């Protein structure tokens, strides 16, 4: 109690420390966190060391436990343990950018800028005071891609090729970050602004939710081809409506508080109110939800891999491993069970962590 008088302004670090304290108070969250950390460590280790080369056929195909192959080999003699370890990489650790032309980069950057600009301009556009500014922003966002396309085609940019490379953090995480940005902006506008904006935004998102998820993924992947970036896009788009719903319900509740009235009577912009006044108080549930979503994404990537529509080779993909080992399950069950175990423990770990944290937060608020 006495420490209260000496408390400092909250910083990012003290917030994180707070959350960690909460986690440590919940057994479920601690177990979940341990499971997730286990896979993060395994993934990091796999960059520098695996028992065998994950992509080389070094052993006798479809064998069980043997010397040098602790968890057996798959149908072409690769080490299950090494492949499962390396499978963590594409999901959590790195995203592979393929070989692309400068023109394609230009288009990509224009696309991302259009989305970001659109997300920034949309709140302005829904605000009476700044409507004009917002609509101008939306128009600019809409013409960015065609302009980039013209530039790329009319110059030689399409011929200059940049070799492939990887960026940090895996597909599942980028994808969920995408749905979080997209979904929470739309949800905050719908919830805070209400009226027509709410109806239009939520109608569109509800239509999206009505589609079976896996069909949505397959449509996107079939249209754009397999690849890490496409998977991120698919995860972001399919996840956004759910995030938006949650953000909207949070905004609806928070907007009735008096401190929002106070901000309004200071003439704050809608952007300030949404992101500085409402979002910090809605972020807890959104982050917990995001953690669950990373779990879903891992699961979905696995399912898609199983359907042969997952992440491209050469890096191993758990779902794909299961799919390929399926015909010889009777001979070499470990080739199916080991990656399946990996998916299950990572997903369950994320779920436990999110649930435990959520429970602890709600109890803390009471």
């Amino acid at each position, binding site marked *: 109690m006495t420490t209260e008088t000496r408390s400092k302004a909250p910083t990012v670090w003290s917030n994180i420390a707070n959350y960690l304290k909460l986690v440590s108070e919940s057994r479920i969250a601690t177990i979940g966190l341990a499971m997730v950390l286990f896979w993060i460590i395994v993934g990091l280790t796999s960059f520098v060391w695996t028992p065998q080369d994950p992509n080389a056929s070094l052993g006798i195909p479809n064998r069980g436990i043997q010397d040098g192959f602790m968890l057996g080999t798959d149908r072409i003699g690769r080490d299950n343990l090494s492949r499962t370890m390396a499978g963590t990489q594409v999901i959590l650790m790195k995203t592979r950018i393929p070989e692309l032309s400068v023109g394609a980069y230009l288009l990509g950057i224009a696309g991302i800028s259009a989305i970001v600009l659109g997300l920034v301009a949309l709140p302005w556009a829904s605000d009476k005071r700044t409507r004009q500014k917002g609509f101008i922003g939306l128009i600019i966002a809409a013409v960015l891609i065609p302009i980039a396309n013209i530039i790329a085609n009319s110059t030689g940019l399409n011929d200059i090729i940049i070799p492939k490379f990887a960026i940090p953090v895996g597909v599942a995480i980028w994808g969920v970050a995408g749905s979080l940005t997209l979904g929470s902006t739309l949800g905050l506008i719908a919830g805070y602004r209400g009226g027509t904006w709410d109806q239009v935004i939520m109608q569109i998102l509800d239509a999206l939710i009505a589609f079976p998820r896996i069909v949505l993924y397959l449509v996107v992947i079939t249209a754009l081809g397999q690849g890490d970036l496409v998977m991120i896009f698919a995860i972001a788009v399919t996840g956004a409506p759910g995030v938006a719903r949650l953000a909207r319900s949070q905004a609806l509740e928070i907007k009735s508080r008096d401190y929002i009235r106070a901000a309004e009577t200071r*003439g704050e912009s809608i952007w300030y109110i949404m992101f500085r006044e409402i979002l910090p108080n809605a972020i807890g549930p959104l982050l917990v939800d995001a953690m669950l979503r990373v779990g879903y994404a891992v699961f979905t990537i696995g399912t898609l891999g199983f359907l042969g529509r997952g992440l491209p080779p050469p890096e191993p993909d758990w779902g794909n491993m299961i799919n390929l080992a399926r015909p010889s399950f009777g001979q070499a069950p470990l080739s199916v069970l080991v990656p399946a175990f990996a998916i299950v423990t990572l997903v369950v770990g994320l779920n436990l962590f999110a649930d435990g944290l959520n429970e602890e937060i709600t109890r803390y608020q009471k």
Partner: protein
Amino acid sequence: MSNNTNDTAVLKCENLAIAYKVRGGEIEAVQNVSFEIHKGETYGIVGESGCGKSTAAWAVVNFLGSNGYVKRGNIWFQGQDLVNKDGEELRKLRGNNIAMVYQDPMQALNPSMVIGDQMREVLTVHQEISEEEATQRCIDMLEKVYMPDAANVLKRYPHQISGGQQQRVVIATALLINPALLIMDEPTTALDVTVEAAVLDLIDELRREFDTAIMYITHNLGVVARVCDKVGVMYAGEMVERGTVKDIFKNPQHPYTQGLIRAVPKLGANKEGSILYPIPGRVPAPNARPSGCMFAPRCDYVTERCRTEHPELRRVGTDNVDVRCHLTEEIDAAAWVPGDNIDVPDLTKRNLDTEPIMVLDKLQKYYDVKGSSILDALGFGKKRHVKAVEGATFSVPKGSTLGIVGESGSGKSTLIKTIIGLEQATGGEATFLNFDVTTDLAERDPGLIQELQMVFQNPDSTMNPSYTVGQQIGRPMERFGTVPKDEVRGEVMKLLKQMRLGENYFDRLPRQLSGGEKQRVGIARALASRPDVVLCDEPVSALDVSVQAAILNLLLNVQAEHKTTMLFIAHDLSVVRFFSDNIAVMYLGEIMEIGPSESIYAPPYHPYTEALLSAVPVPDPSAIQKHIRLEGDIPSAIDPPSGCRFHTRCPRKAMLPNNGKICEEQIPPWQEGADGHKIFCHIPIEELATFDPVISAPNSGVAV
């Protein structure tokens, strides 16, 4: 063991201590509480929030939750020990004989069940009776609590009746089992004064008729004075004084009781008599209680002995009063003067500018209502409106305070929301320093926005939980550029100091503040842009009386210093009395009476003002207050009554010819009295002036 049980006591608590188990230990919420309640007696338990009043009640009905338990002492109910009994027997004993009524009636009612079913269930669970008989008994009981159209109410859902009626249903349900003991925990706190008055009358009557023992928990001393026979004052988990209401109000002996009485709004005959004196400091948390007298840190008379030796409850003098204080005999309450740590407002009449800073002319705000029929959905339905504010006309002199008073739903909040631009006016004119203020905020100039700021009602939602005090007070300064960026911190510190908050509050988060402190920050934030006008929407109604007084005095001093103009909403007339230069009384969207504050509290009264005044609970059992009760509920603001909007409930209408036919047909005239006092009524002002004053107290028999 039962030889010390008094047979006539329905409830007797002896040295009761109740503890809650919490993480890392336990909290003793209640200690050393002893009292007894007899048949047909109403026993009041008063004290600030956090003093353990509700905990004591929950212990009796065993609602302490999974982590609470009676740690020491006894609870005797009709001679049977409740603490050492368990299981079914206990449940039965309590279920058949003890009933409880809470603050929020909706807590006791099931929203998805019609009222009839809920009430009948109480009877059919406990005894074998037929459906018809049960229905008849429910109707009888509802009629006893003056529920209009009782048979019909049984068929409705809880949300289809008003808050006051819901509370009556709860009370009627509680009485159905004819309990020996009725526990009421702030049963009228959520209600309007006018409804509260009716419910209090009811409680008084029921006690006489049914001979029930009532344990009545409240923070409002006025209510205690009206309904209780005896009272126990609780402070920090202990009972510090107990006795008959008459004795305690006449001669409060414990410094805490004295402080409470000085802090409650009164409706005395003069303005000085209505000054409020706060009790400095706040109730200590259960785990931070001092070792000697609990009240020592806040007491004006504290001595060394108080800090070390815990006082016992002891009989004092010849009155039947027990007090927990070492020095009772030496304390002379009449000689009390406010200490240096209390702001006392300066009541010398200020010379007000006559030049108005804000002028409203027939300002009107209608809300559209969405119908539910298909036609409405298609947009062909008849357009309907909630007529929330109609024809508001007044001007506010620069630097003055206008108090706005009225029942819930009378349009007070809507009026100031429209002025500040949270809502757009639908008609009429309003100007502030020659700016038009009928538009909403999106169309206002930043310069104008800066000049009008607002203080809100609910301390728990007035501050953003994610930012520190300093950040929140500093934000308006940054936004409007009132001070250069590098001086913001210093300026915030200055404001904090004015709010009597130390510099160490700068980095605190809202959850580390008490309700009163949050309100202070809210006020500082409103003042940060140096506005000309501050609009206050019930800024003290959610606070304890002792804190309430401090905030009101603070606002007054701020006003004196900054020459701020204020519009101040309150729901009853006792709060705004010494505070306002002018007062407007609103009913159903219209102003009924407006004028200098003195003129509102003395005849001529508008009939509605008269009714409001006679409903305010006065913390003085010897005061004689006119008994006027309004019938029925506030009508719907969608179809307000024709002519005078008050005519459906006006107790004075009958004075006019034809039982006041004119009131139903014609809009009343504005009649002018002295000093700009105006009354909106058909009864000639000369006749209104002949009414007796509402409160003819041998003023404040209270020795403070």
